[in-house]
């Protein structure tokens, strides 16, 4: 039986849940993880992981300044701004 520290996972996810929500999610997630236990049937000791299906590595471009999004456009959806800064509440 898998135990999940829902409070911890919610904090990592930056999600705030009601007690009711925590209970529901915990149950549903537990059921899904128990189903995922099926994977333990497989011996994957010598199997390499596939994070990505294409044989692409280190796709770089020249470090050259090209056309970029003008600052005003980048700021246009800002919920709150102060000049060229996105304004947020205090951090500490």
């Amino acid at each position: 039986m898998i135990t999940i520290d829902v409070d911890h996972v919610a904090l990592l996810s930056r999600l705030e849940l009601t007690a009711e929500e925590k209970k529901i999610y915990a149950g549903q997630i537990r059921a899904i993880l128990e189903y995922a236990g099926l994977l333990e049937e497989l011996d994957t000791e010598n199997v390499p992981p596939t994070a990505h299906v294409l044989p692409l590595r280190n796709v770089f471009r020249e470090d050259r300044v090209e056309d970029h999004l003008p600052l005003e456009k980048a700021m246009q959806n800002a919920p709150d701004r102060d000049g060229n800064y996105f304004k947020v509440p205090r951090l500490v």
Partner: protein
Amino acid sequence: MDLLYTPAHELQRGLAARQISAGELCRAVLARIDKLDEKLRAFITVTPELALSQAGEVDRRIAAGEELPPLAGIPVAVKDVICTRGVRTTCASRILHNFVPPYNATVMEKIMARGMVMVGKTNMDEFAMGSSNENSGYYPASNPWDTQRVPGGSSGGSAVAVAAGMAVLALGSDTGGSIRQPASFCGVVGLKPTYGAVSRYGLVAYASSLDQIGPIAGNVADCALLLSAIAGYDPLDSTSAPGERPDYTKSLNQEIRGLKVGVPREYMGEGIDPGVRGVIDGALKVLASLGAEIEEVSLPHSKYAIPAYYLIATAEASSNLARYDGVSYGYRVEDPGDVVDMYMKSRSRGFGAEVKRRIMLGTFALSAGYYDAYYLKALKVRTLIKQDFDRAFEKYDVLICPTTPSTAFRKGEKVDDPLQMYLSDITTISANLAGIPGISVPAGFSGGLPVGMQIMGRPFGEGDLLRVAHAFEQATGHHKRRPEL
């Protein structure tokens, strides 16, 4: 010329011959949206002024004697997960209720350069997470064949738009079946390209190693046309496959004599509705009569695909959705205490339940102490699943199975049991894990509801898919049947 349900490839001829105008075609589609969408809810944003201005531009160019590219003037609906410059893009989420992208996705640049006419942004499951369009943060969409039933998801709105004649073509996205499954439920054609075939630049990311944008159309030829318009290497997408793409329309009207078809036994057995099985068995007989050689094959790791997917996709999603923090765009809660409070409240109020569930599942799978047992294990199983396909494609040209285990289910039937909802993805999910292409074509009906046949191919084997799909379609004509609206 009768406009409703006329294929794009015929409309093109009509436009070039000046039998119809792009303006007239656009107005007809917009009128259809006006008439039906209050009931079907395929759209989140309809863009009539933009569409009419684009259509007007096409007509001006035709009048000036210009030869226009394929698909010019053709009305298209775009899934609301694709960024459209200056047009609200919500991903069917409250957290992006007011987000207006300052840039176009690469696929949008490509279709706009073709002169296509965008009629609106379509409804979907929030952040592409879902199989029924019931997870939309706005409202659910309805299946045009039976409005008490779901259209499928997550590209529900796009499939509905095409099935109901509210767009000639549509763009969807597919991470675990989100183009193919709604295409199957709605009786239209939907194709998920090989991973890397179509640019993901401007596609709002759900699971970066699984997502692909693809075409939804009323017939295979139109699907090939739209795929040709959107496919291609993109330097703006570092996961874009280099190299040229073929002209997919060359795969139409080809023979399939001698084609080797594998039918995975794991997708034809228990769990598949007998009515659906019957339709697919009938479809395979048609392919055999056209000269295809059909054999059973095994993909032994099939049953591990769903658990592997729901660990990998949710892990990637938990990372991709970390950006929705209320800082620089999207919903921000009013009067937050401090920055962490802002993150917590904005995300908790902005995201729907399914999104929160998947973020937490993914976060857990990646967290310290669990990463090896869950996420890493799933990636190793992914290798085994991919190897099953590699082995199968040594012997077979394509693999065929039902697109979905059942026809469209009723609204509300699976919302309370997320695991049940996930299990309905069994036949589509493996293609995303392996990165291979898959198409769903209308194969018949069961209980009055559409049944889709899925054809899967080798990486970059879209040509084979289209060849088989087109031959089948031309021999059967299921795509011509329309819902009563």
